[in-house]
């Protein structure tokens, strides 16, 4: 199809090009109308001037933005060291739930309980319970730090979800692959490691990307137990300046990171769909 683009266009292609042009023009016009309405109507609302002043204040944004970026670094750090831990723990839990041998029954039970509990409790509750609970044991520094225990709470919760995704990936690999591996003399464990897991992990990369994006945002939940990351920093500015613009700034910073990752995840998903055809 692609190569024909450079050839002389035939009747069908001319017709399709005309239709494409038409739909592009229609889309442009309807978008322009919608934007015009928003631009005219929103400022007509009674509270607009106040909202504009307290949410979209350019001076406040300029003044607070660098500090917000600094605080965002903490988000990035917490994200960067919890993501690999989540991947490892999630995979281990998935494998634990997938064991067959009767001796490993406790491991299966543990895996099932783990996923049930941490998927069943709201993240913020886990953050509170672990982030406040464990330092409450009176541990010496640095083991009383909310960074550590808050991150652990995130790691535990996300591992539960990630484990379930890995498990669905393992189950998505056709049983005939296992049969082929066993028929060659491989043990169950070798079949899992060399044949099933590599395929399973590849199959779930797009879904796991979505978990990463969610994690990027949920790091902000740690603000409730202490660490001054971007959300808390924005809150501090809000109180200092009696203005909500720092929150909008924080949202912008999040979007700069999450939109590309979302697009990338979509791209991976689309590529995988094509590969499966």
């Amino acid at each position: 199809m692609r190569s024909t683009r450079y050839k002389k266009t035939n009747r069908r292609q001319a017709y399709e090009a005309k239709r494409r042009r038409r739909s592009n023009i229609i889309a442009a016009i309807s978008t322009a109308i919608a934007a015009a309405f928003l631009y005219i109507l929103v400022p007509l609302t009674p509270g607009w001037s106040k909202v504009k002043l307290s949410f979209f204040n350019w001076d406040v944004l300029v003044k607070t933005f660098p500090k917000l970026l600094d605080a965002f670094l903490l988000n990035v750090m917490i994200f960067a060291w919890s993501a690999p831990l989540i991947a490892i723990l999630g995979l281990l839990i998935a494998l634990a739930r997938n064991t067959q041998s009767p001796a490993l029954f406790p491991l299966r039970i543990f895996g099932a309980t783990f996923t049930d509990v941490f998927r069943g409790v709201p993240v913020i509750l886990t953050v509170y319970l672990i982030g406040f609970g464990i330092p409450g044991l009176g541990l010496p520094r640095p083991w009383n730090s909310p960074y550590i225990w808050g991150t652990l709470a995130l790691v535990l919760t996300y591992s539960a979800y990630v484990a379930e995704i890995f498990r669905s990936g393992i189950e998505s690999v056709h049983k005939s692959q296992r049969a082929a591996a066993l028929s060659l003399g491989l043990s169950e464990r070798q079949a899992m490691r060399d044949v099933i897991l590599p395929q399973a992990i590849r199959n779930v990369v797009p879904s796991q990307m979505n978990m990463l994006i969610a994690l990027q945002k949920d790091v902000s939940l740690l603000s409730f137990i202490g660490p001054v990351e971007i959300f808390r920093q924005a809150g501090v500015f809000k109180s200092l300046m009696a203005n909500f613009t720092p929150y909008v700034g924080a949202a912008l910073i999040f979007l700069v990171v999450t939109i590309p990752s979302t697009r990338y995840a979509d791209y991976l998903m689309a590529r995988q769909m094509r590969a499966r055809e």
Partner: protein
Amino acid sequence: MNAKLQLKNLTKSYGKTTVCNGIDLEIEQGQMVCLIGASGAGKSSLLRCINLLEDIEEGEILLDGVDISTPGFDPQKVRSRIGMVFQSFNLFPHMTALDNAMLAPRRVLGKTRAQIRPEIEELFHKFGLADRMHQFPNQLSGGQQQRVAIVRALAMRPEVMLFDEITSALDPQLVGEVLDVLLMLKNQGMTMVLATHEMAFAREAADVVCFLKDGQIVEQGPPSQIFEAPKQNATQSFLARALK
């Protein structure tokens, strides 16, 4: 002389459906045995039982006179001596053709890549796959994939090979290249059991043909007897339909 592979009263069922119902069969060293019969007659199940992919309920499977179906017998030891090739190829899609073939010798026999690579490359050459070694399964045609699957099984130097309708998923023009490989193996003296729908091939190449129906061997004998003078009504009517 003892048979290479001997099945005695082999019985296997899934719930209430009996898929193998008291099968007796003796396979001599170097023989090619073709299992024919309608789909669901028990051909594939029989092969899966021989490779211990399924547990049998009754009977014995003797390999060189040793009962490998004894509960608790290490299936890994058996499977590295009995190779199996499947209808749907089942190549590992994340590995090149060469890595597919090297995986089992490396993991099961504990050899290094360097140790086995010459031997396996030779197999690829022999089966006309020399220029395909470094490609992934989805870059190969069905016939090439199936030949790689055969190479992969041969890489373990098995004593017996089981082929489960290995040409059934292939386009008609690709069937020949896979059957040629089987003839090469036969000429080298490989002991083989095939479940197949390729009647012309069975007639030409098999030493023994077994007609299966409802999990039982209805009739067995040399191809001349089965195809030209079948004694059982069931065999006659099956062949009448299959050879039309």
